[in-house]
């Protein structure tokens, strides 16, 4: 049994791999001692090898993991296993947004990642949802239901929040503001894709791929391109790490 652990900024994900297929996965909100939590999450699988990825990867290696890879490589490997025809990966997590290009073997050939700014990340959506009093799960569907096109001009999380508050106080219905917030994230993804370049088959992974509005907006902004979300997009990084654990052991 090979296990991959993805210690992300918001959640911990694990994926277990055996005999050429994924045999289990799990996701938890990350607490104060992520390495302890992650260690507990993997014990049930009694893994032969563990590879860690995500922000806490080095912490996990200090405590229990046998190896580490970056989220970039992990998402590349995970997507290649699930959707081998994809050579472009968009991964939007809690704290990072990335565009990764792969060769036919799932190896990373280029990538772009946001720097310290939170704009365009899951965290950005979360802050805006809170500001508009939506539970996170309702935020995307609400935005999707709105048909009003208004614009948020600021990409900085702090300034965008002020902009959202001022829209709220001008009496604009909140689902329209929600749509504007989603639009701004989708525009940012498109800009990043434009910078790196993309193929006609794009895979979308990371927690934000669960948001139906973002996915639809990215789709409508790209012509003649297929944007596919794998089943369980949040655990793709963990899956990639599990595959790396198997590969290290000569099992893949």
């Amino acid at each position, binding site marked *: 049994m090979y296990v991959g652990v993805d210690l992300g900024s918001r959640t911990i994900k694990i994926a277990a791999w055996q005999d050429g297929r994924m045999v289990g996965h799990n996701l938890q909100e990350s607490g104060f001692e992520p390495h302890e939590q992650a260690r507990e999450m993997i014990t049930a699988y009694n893994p032969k090898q563990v590879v860690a990825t995500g922000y806490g990867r080095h912490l996990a290696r200090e405590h229990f993991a046998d190896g580490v890879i970056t*989220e*970039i*490589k992990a998402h590349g490997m995970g997507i290649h296993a699930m959707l081998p025809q994809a050579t472009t990966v968009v991964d939007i997590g809690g704290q990072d947004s990335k565009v990764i290009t792969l060769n036919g073997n799932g190896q990373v050939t280029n990538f772009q990642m946001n720097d310290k700014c939170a704009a365009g990340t899951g965290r950005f959506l979360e802050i805006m949802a809170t500001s508009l009093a939506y539970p996170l799960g309702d935020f995307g569907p609400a935005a999707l239901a709105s048909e009003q096109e208004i614009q948020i001009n600021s990409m900085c999380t702090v300034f965008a929040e002020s902009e959202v508050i001022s829209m709220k106080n001008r009496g604009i219905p909140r689902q329209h503001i929600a749509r504007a917030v989603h639009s701004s994230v989708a525009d940012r993804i498109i800009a990043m894709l434009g910078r790196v370049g993309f193929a006609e088959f794009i895979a979308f992974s990371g927690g934000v791929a669960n948001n139906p509005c973002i996915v639809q907006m990215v789709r409508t902004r790209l012509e003649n391109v297929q944007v596919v979300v794998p089943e369980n997009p949040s655990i793709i990084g963990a899956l990639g790490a599990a595959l790396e654990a198997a590969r290290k052991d000569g099992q893949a």
Partner: protein
Amino acid sequence: MTHFEIKAYPEMWKDLDMDVERFDKMRLMLGEIYEKTYLSQKNRPAGMAYFDNMVAEIHGGRIKELLAAKEEGRPVIGTFCVYIPEEIVLAAGGVCVGLCGGSQGSVPDAEKILPRNICPMVKSAFGFKAGRICPYFQVVDFVYGETTCDAKKKTWEILDDMVPTHVMEIPQMKNQTDQDMWLAEVKAFKTKVESISGKEVTLAEMRQATRTMNNKRKALQRLNRLRHTNPTPISGKDVLLIEQIAFYDEPVRFAKEVNELCDELEKRISDNVAIPGKNAARIMVAGVPMALPNWKLHNLVEGAGAVIVNEESCIGTRYYKDLMDEDAEDMETILQNLTSRYMQIDCSCFTPNNERIDQVLKEYKESGAQGIIHYSLQFCHTYNIEEIRIRQACEKEGIPYMFIESDYSPEDVGQLQTRVEAFLEQIGE
């Protein structure tokens, strides 16, 4: 790991009108960071001891030397740019020091006055003076600024209220009219320096100064050639430190020490002593200067198991790649030679700046690197935009390439670490 401390000279600092209490805290912090960043490295060359000591004495021993020079009536001039012709300062018997500008610690002092969204190097430097926390700033007769960027040229006007600041106009193109203007600026600079020393610089003094600077640059070129060996005998962090110390050490002594270190490195190469490991990925850095103590990128890259083998930067090759003719027969010729030498500097403030693209590719080949990280400081428009052309050139040549824009604060270290490690994974595959 031996304990490292930057030596304290509270009496002297007080005489220099510094904020002694605050500066002492910064001294302790810098000492700790240095210990962690530098002394934790395994298998360093013995010759690094001299440079460790230059850091230990950065706020003491070297300042005493500058004070002694001033006492003898020799000019002490603070600068921020590789365009300021050191040869002229040396010829006048003076001392040229690159001023502090590489620390997050002084940025809040600057942000009390300057806008926040400008280059961190300009803010850091300005903050060191505003907070009275840099002994070099306190010692200099004056600062010689230049016009290589908008943030700098407008900051000089404000800085002038705190320390006499003169400005040299650096051309932005390389046409004949620009060269003529630059020669006039060099002459004006010479006159200004002479006004401090109280005597005119002679041809013999200019020739001697030219030799001194050539020797210093040759020593750095030799060091850079030796580190290009695969596997490399010295860490990128150590070479970066030496390149940084080049801006405040006495040039003759510095060249001698660098050459002695090079002798040791040659021995290491023949004995097959490598740092850090024989299979470490080799990375070249290109871009903006890294003022002391900006070791952020080197620390990340080498912390991830790779080694930096070249700095295409003002702190690196841009400072020492060009030499000049030492044997001119008259002052006019030697000044013209000097002007031509400095016009070869391929700073991104020039347009067009095709020479730099070629230079980056040349250094990539010479250094045997496996990838380039282009490093820019936030809000540095010229390097940030020129990056596009560097990236295109790397794509065309099939060179693995990554661009990092950062400042001195630690807040983006997590993201940068991920990006650097992912880049190394990409090269390794």
